């Protein structure tokens, strides 16, 4: 059977071109015309937009991703357009659509790039039911992956951004994709979304961090996206085995602590963070149970990133 991982690998070898091979004007022409088709892990997206902030963000953060041709298949056809009406002239707005379907209210035009990132996450989490999808960051080292499920505000993205610049590979900042057939995690290495204070924290922590221009006053506060490490993007076709489930919690001034969670409790807490657990029926249950069995689960509190890195470096492979 042909798996999504081998499919991704095949596409990667076939497509030698990356988005960086386009000049800025070629990029803008594609976005305004047939769409810019780009592969991120198992998904191909065709993006259409004439909004400069969209081209800016893609040029800055998506250079290393495989570029697809005008005739190639895309899973998602998304657009970021200016809605009509008076807003065109007064406080311009941007509207996201998936092939004509508009799931969100328009946002101020300055939010266009974060809206593309949120929109693509929404496309995957509401459509790609070939996987059990968990709202979690995923990082990997030596073939073993840590799943970091967490509600917003827990410091998950900050931790993920730090880890992937300290020896871990980025699989995803938002979406753990567990494949029911073999229980492996598939990477969707896209930019890491940083909010508010964590933007400066990561700027200080990662010497060569490439970040998109911060956008303020979004529903999540000020948002900037951190470029995914090139090595993680290059290995987007390599799945990983789940080994740890870590529920992170940032607490100012807290001492670093790592406590194991009993399996039954971990199961329900991960299920709570899943996008499509009930949609997947029995297969969702079996997939999640397999992941829980394969992993050791922890509650993790931290306030200091260096100490957090040390804890992750010391994680032991489960039996």
């Amino acid at each position, binding site marked *: 059977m042909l798996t999504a991982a081998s499919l991704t690998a095949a596409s990667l070898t076939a497509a030698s071109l990356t988005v960086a091979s386009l000049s800025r004007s070629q990029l803008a022409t594609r976005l305004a015309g047939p769409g810019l088709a780009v592969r991120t892990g198992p998904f191909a997206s065709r993006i259409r937009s004439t909004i400069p902030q969209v081209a800016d963000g893609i040029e800055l953060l998506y250079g290393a991703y495989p570029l697809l041709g005008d005739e190639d298949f895309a899973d998602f056809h998304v657009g970021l357009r200016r809605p009509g009406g008076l807003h065109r002239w007064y406080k311009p707005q941007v509207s996201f659509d998936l*092939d004509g379907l508009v799931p969100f209210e328009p946002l101020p035009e300055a939010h266009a790039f974060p809206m593309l990132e949120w929109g693509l996450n929404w496309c995957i989490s509401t459509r790609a039911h070939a996987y059990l999808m968990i709202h979690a960051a995923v990082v990997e080292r030596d073939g073993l992956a840590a799943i970091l499920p967490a509600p917003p505000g827990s410091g998950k993205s900050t931790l993920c951004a730090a880890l992937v610049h300290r020896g871990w590979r980025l699989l995803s900042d938002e979406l753990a994709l567990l494949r029911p057939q073999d229980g492996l995690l598939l990477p969707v290495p896209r930019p890491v979304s940083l909010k508010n204070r964590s933007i400066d924290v990561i700027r200080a922590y990662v010497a060569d961090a490439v970040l998109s221009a911060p956008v303020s006053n979004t529903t999540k506060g000020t948002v900037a996206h951190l470029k995914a490490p090139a090595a993680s993007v290059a290995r987007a076709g390599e799945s990983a085995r789940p080994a740890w489930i870590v529920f992170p919690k940032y607490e100012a001034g807290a001492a670093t602590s790592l406590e194991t969670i009993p399996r039954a409790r971990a199961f329900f807490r991960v299920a709570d963070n899943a996008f499509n657990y009930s949609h997947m029926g029995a297969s969702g249950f079996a997939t999640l149970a397999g992941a829980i069995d394969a992993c050791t689960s922890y509650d993790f509190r931290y306030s200091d990133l260096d100490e957090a890195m040390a804890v992750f470096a010391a994680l032991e492979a489960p039996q």
Partner: protein
Amino acid sequence: MSASAPPVLLRLLRDPGLAAALPMADWDLALRQATSANLSPALLALIEECGLLEALPAAPRAHLEWVRALAARHRQAVRFEVECIAAALRPTGLPVLLLKGAAYAMAGLRAGEGRLFADIDILVPKARLDEVESALMLHGWIAGGHDAYDQRYYREWMHELPPMQHVRRRTSIDVHHAILPETAPVRPDPAKLRAAALPIEAAPGLATLAPCDMVLHSAVHLFFDGEFDKGLRDLLDLHRLFGEFGARPAFWDTLPARAHELQLARPLFYALRYSRRLLGTDVPAAVLDALAPARPNRRLLALMDGLFERALLPMHASCDDALTGSARFALYLRGNWLRMPPLLLARHLFHKAFISKKNAPETA
């Protein structure tokens, strides 16, 4: 659409064998059209029936696989829900006579493969409505969010109770006592439909309409209604029912006479016409001849072709032309026109536009 080539999704539904050699750009468009028409699981089922899934290029195949879990979960949920309904109605002694999607799924018909739907519809005798409603309420289904006018609309004029929802599972059931509103110009006798109903052998206590009646109900539901957002799905139902029942003896021989008997020859005429024109359904010439009396005059038929052959396409930008919006609106008006006499319709639309709207925040 007559001027241009049919949408690629229609070509695939008409001949799933094309899946073996479809160019990549066509796959891209076909799967987008299928998503818009809510037909991705049905397309997956059709391609698998032909044994062609392995022949698909990797990318569209992986994309189609996304809906497999949803379809399986839906099938399981329908079975569970039907069992709950059967348990609730057991004290009434009535068979659970399933209509539309739930009937196709529970009877194991090909039309039920990969078909997604939101409500379960059943048909009960009008004289037993109160009893059925009470039995369902005892088991947790309630009719919510309807004001006094809505209650009157359903109970006096329509052919069903106000839709009921289960308080815990949030699932919906529509309890019908007829297949057309009390106020419609044609009113097929529901007693005849119930008398001909057939038990589902594998599921004691459950029943479906007889094959001819099932087709006629599907036809009247599609061609007397005003909303076509699920139009192509319903046309595909007809195409698949014609294909499966057409292979059985006596189906084609009895269908025209039954249609005339139930005053449903016109919707059957439309069902056969558009199922043939859009999906290439095989229909014996004798059946077409027998329905010739139900054919609208030449001018009306040209108009209906223009309307239906736009509204029945997937709701996707690639299938629209300059007249698509107007065609859908004209059919919406027609659908309401066919439900009620003009004066009652005017009153109903007036109420919906001004009075229900004004009261809406209080009832919500």
